[in-house]
């Protein structure tokens, strides 16, 4: 017995030694981070230009939250408008690298200023009686090999410029980061946000008091008021635009809860024989319908994907990998086109549409659908009892109800509210354990209605500039109800529609159909012979090689050896080597990367 106790004792010692490491002293960091001047000091202490210079992928250092080249009102970019409205706060700019042709990143708030940062920091230290103690801030980031230099840069800048600080860098996986974020065990967190639709609300929405994404516990009545009014179209036109400008200023300059770092761009090498691969700002990254191949003899586009497809159910799908595929195998009422051209979107399934203002203040869009058949995974027209099934208005209504159904737990359920669909707020208020009748009633009251097989009425609480563009967003794609019901459900009560690796459990109405879905191997799309706009589709086949965990250097090498037509330069090393390649393309992405401060630390 003694020996067993001894064994336990030894194990205890070993564990004890490990556990003591993690314990940290006091809540000093929490008190400090809730002081706006501390947050401002941190904001001012980091030279953002250094990192983007290191990256060499065309990313800008950002002192602003709403990205540049994202939203313009009356032809004035949001950033220029902000600079014009608050000239005293936003005068400084970063000089972009480059010798003869000096360019600047757009201006913003809290520009890098070490002297001011030090002053604010010393003041705050005195105010809180910090003395000689070291303040340790918990900095939560997700692991991504190519971003390690950024995390280290932030850590070193803060520790160097604000004496007496220590940044406890906690690198975890993306999933772990989100779960720690929900628990609130951090002071500073690195986050990014890519817009869902082309309006600043998609960014500002995050920090509303009760927003599910507002994990930092930020709450400001003025801010809430401004954003809510703009979102619900209580104010319109100039007033709305000004409200958006002011809301951003409150967030970044007055309260300093968000500290922007940079606006990311992705640079990729692209086969010069491939044309019209237009990067989209919202929704799927690319619509392959438009792509033209000038390769001699081959109309196959070879692409590389570093992840398997998580979810191809258009109403619950929410990630870029799935969207990329969905955008080409299915089609919404509209389809994204060249975002830099005159037509950011063009008609898709909808042939034409008309808009009427109702007496109650709502707006109704009436879409006329064209006759385009559903296609199976063998490329044939889908028939029931010998009758060809066309994409009908009912299919849209059915899909949108699925999107709203709380039992489906769709992450993009809020898109119904975003477009301002009538009845969306009632649907959002539903809980999955509500009675079946309640749910059915609320869903049936949604403002989407099939007038006849090829006429769809969509009634909105308020019209918006982004509504028609959003109709190309995968959440709004149609689903064939009869087929959906015919595939049945599995043990857990899930639908078998779009089961993993089984394209035969799906129907397609896009320019391509999904002919082969093999995880970790290949995804193959084949040109659909029965698509309505067949002549416009140039590619015969799209092949994605799926290589999870591939290193950035290997990806580039595969491109150089001709195995793929496109390679994203994913880390600083490959960017340095190839970013000046004549075939390199900068994406024009509008994803913002920033730090959030945990202002409501509990």
């Amino acid at each position, binding site marked *: 017995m*003694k020996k*067993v106790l001894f064994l336990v004792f030894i*194990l205890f010692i070993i564990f004890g030694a*490990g556990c003591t490491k*993690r314990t940290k002293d006091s809540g000093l960091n929490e008190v400090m981070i809730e002081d706006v001047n501390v947050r401002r000091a941190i904001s001012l202490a980091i030279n953002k230009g250094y990192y983007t210079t290191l990256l060499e992928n065309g990313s800008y250092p950002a002192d602003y939250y709403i990205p540049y080249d994202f939203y313009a009102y009356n032809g004035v970019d949001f950033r220029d408008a902000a600079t014009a409205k608050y000239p005293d706060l936003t005068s400084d700019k970063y000089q972009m690298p480059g010798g003869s042709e000096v360019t600047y990143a757009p201006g913003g708030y809290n520009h890098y200023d070490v002297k001011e940062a030090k002053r604010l920091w010393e003041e705050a230290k005195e105010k809180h009686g910090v003395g000689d103690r070291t303040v340790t801030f918990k900095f939560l980031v997700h692991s991504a090999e190519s971003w390690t230099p950024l995390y280290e840069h932030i850590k070193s800048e803060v520790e160097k410029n604000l004496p007496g600080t220590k940044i406890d860098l*906690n690198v975890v996986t993306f999933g772990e980061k989100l779960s720690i974020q929900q628990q609130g065990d951090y002071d500073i967190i690195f986050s990014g946000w890519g817009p869902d639709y082309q309006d600043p609300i998609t960014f500002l929405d995050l920090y509303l008091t009760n927003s599910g994404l507002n994990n930092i516990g930020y709450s400001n009545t003025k801010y809430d008021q401004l954003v809510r009014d703009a979102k619900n179209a209580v104010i319109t036109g100039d007033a709305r635009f000004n409200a958006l400008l002011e809301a951003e200023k409150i967030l970044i300059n007055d309260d300093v809860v968000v500290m922007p770092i940079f606006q990311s761009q992705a640079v990729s*090498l692209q086969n010069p024989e491939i044309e019209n691969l237009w990067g989209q700002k919202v929704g799927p990254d690319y619509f392959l319908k438009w792509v033209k191949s000038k390769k001699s003899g081959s109309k196959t586009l070879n692409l590389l994907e570093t992840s398997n497809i998580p979810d191809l159910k258009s109403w619950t799908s929410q990630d870029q990998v799935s969207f990329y595929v969905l955008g080409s195998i299915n089609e919404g009422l509209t389809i994204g086109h060249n975002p830099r051209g005159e037509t950011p979107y063009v008609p898709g399934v909808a042939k034409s549409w008309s808009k009427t203002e109702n007496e109650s203040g709502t707006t109704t869009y009436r879409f006329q659908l064209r006759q385009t058949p559903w296609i199976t995974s063998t490329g044939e027209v889908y028939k029931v009892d010998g009758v060809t099934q066309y994409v009908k208005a009912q299919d849209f209504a059915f899909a949108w109800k699925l999107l709203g159904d709380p039992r489906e737990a769709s992450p993009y359920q809020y898109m119904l509210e975003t477009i301002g669909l009538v009845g969306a707020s009632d649907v959002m208020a539903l809980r999955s354990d509500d009675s079946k009748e309640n749910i059915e009633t609320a869903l049936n009251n949604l403002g989407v209605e099939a007038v006849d097989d090829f006429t769809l009425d969509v009634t909105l609480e308020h019209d918006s500039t982004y509504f028609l563009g959003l109709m190309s967003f995968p959440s709004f794609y149609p689903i064939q109800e009869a087929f959906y019901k015919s595939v049945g459900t599995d043990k857990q009560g899930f639908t078998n529609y779009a089961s993993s690796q089984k394209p035969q459990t799906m129907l397609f109405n896009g320019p391509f159909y999904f002919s082969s879905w093999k995880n970790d191997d290949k995804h193959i799309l084949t040109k659909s012979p029965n698509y309505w706009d067949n002549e416009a589709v140039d590619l015969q086949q799209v092949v994605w090689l799926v290589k999870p965990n591939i290193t950035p250097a290997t990806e580039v090498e595969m491109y*150089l050896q001709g195995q793929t037509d496109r390679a994203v330069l994913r880390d600083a090393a490959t960017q340095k080597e190839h970013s000046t*390649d004549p075939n390199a393309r900068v994406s024009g992405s509008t994803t913002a990367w920033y730090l959030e401060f945990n202002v409501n630390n509990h």
Partner: protein
Amino acid sequence: MPEIVNKFNFVKNKAVETEAISGKSLGYWKDSFRRLLLNKVAFSCLAFLLLLYIFSWIITLTSNTSTIIEPQIENPNTGAYIEKQYLSGLPPRIKGLEWFSWFNGKSTFTIPKASLTNPQTAYKYREGTYEINSCTVDARGVEMCSITQDMYAQNNIEFVYFPFGTDDGARDQWIRTWFGVRNSISIGILVAIFDIVVGTIYGAIAGFYGGTKIDNVMMRFAEIYGSIPSIVLLILLASVLGRGFWTMVIAMVLTGWINVATMIRAQFLRYRDHDFVLASKTVGASSRRLIFKHILPNVVSQLVILAAFDVPSAIFYEATLSFIGLGLPVDQPSLGNLITRGITNRVMLPYMLWIPTIILSLILLAINLLANGLRDALDPRLRGR
């Protein structure tokens, strides 16, 4: 006959002398140590490792250069600190060794030829700081040139010397490498010690009671426990304790002791029924006395050898874990971390890969050779061969 007697002298009876022990008698440990000293390779490896480890502690404790913040160097011309961007990615440069191409502060890398004239990038290739070695057209029809550039001249900091260069984050690789050496060797040693302690206790108990229920339960437990992949244990532990040096050590010990325990148990089974143990038992020695005083000393040599082979495998394992992103946190350099970083940058900043790799390989090589030497010196089966 008398003549014969006179002719042949009796050889002096040397029986006593020949059987006398000439030279001092040597104990087991003394003898082993002597053997180790005689093995020049093993001994020089031991000396090398000790020096390296002590040196790493001295350097890391005395240096005031940070492993996180870029070195703060004053520019004598302007009096200001050199900005971070000019200190990033500098190759090794040692005063007096500039004639040697590895330490002359010049980088050789390949870029598209257009970079030299592109207004966005041309400022990085100032006239006179680089020379073009050769140009080729790659498979996509882009002209790529291999150029050799004096990075120190390009950044106007020719008065600075970094013996191991700086990394892509502008930190001094010299100090980071020594931190890495310190951390890696420490992990190896600690893991080996804990493995031996835990494994010995467990294996000794199981072996001593060999064949009984206690043994059976203990070995089945070890078997089941050993089947949980160590990576899963590491991730579980990291999610509870957070990533760090001690998490790493504990996680390795959690699975590492099983091998030691199995080996010790086998040895105990062997010695348990020997006469000296039985004799001791009959005069009433307690189990603890039997285990620790009688059997364990016989196994010590095996333990030393096991430990010696355990150190390099722990270092190696840490390096592999770093590569898949489960190693020490990024702000705590280990050789594995440094090499992983080096692999990412191997094309543009190759010295970031080869310096830590050579050092790691040397350490592993030295420990392995030392372990071989120890085995030759300690293992009774291999003695004298």
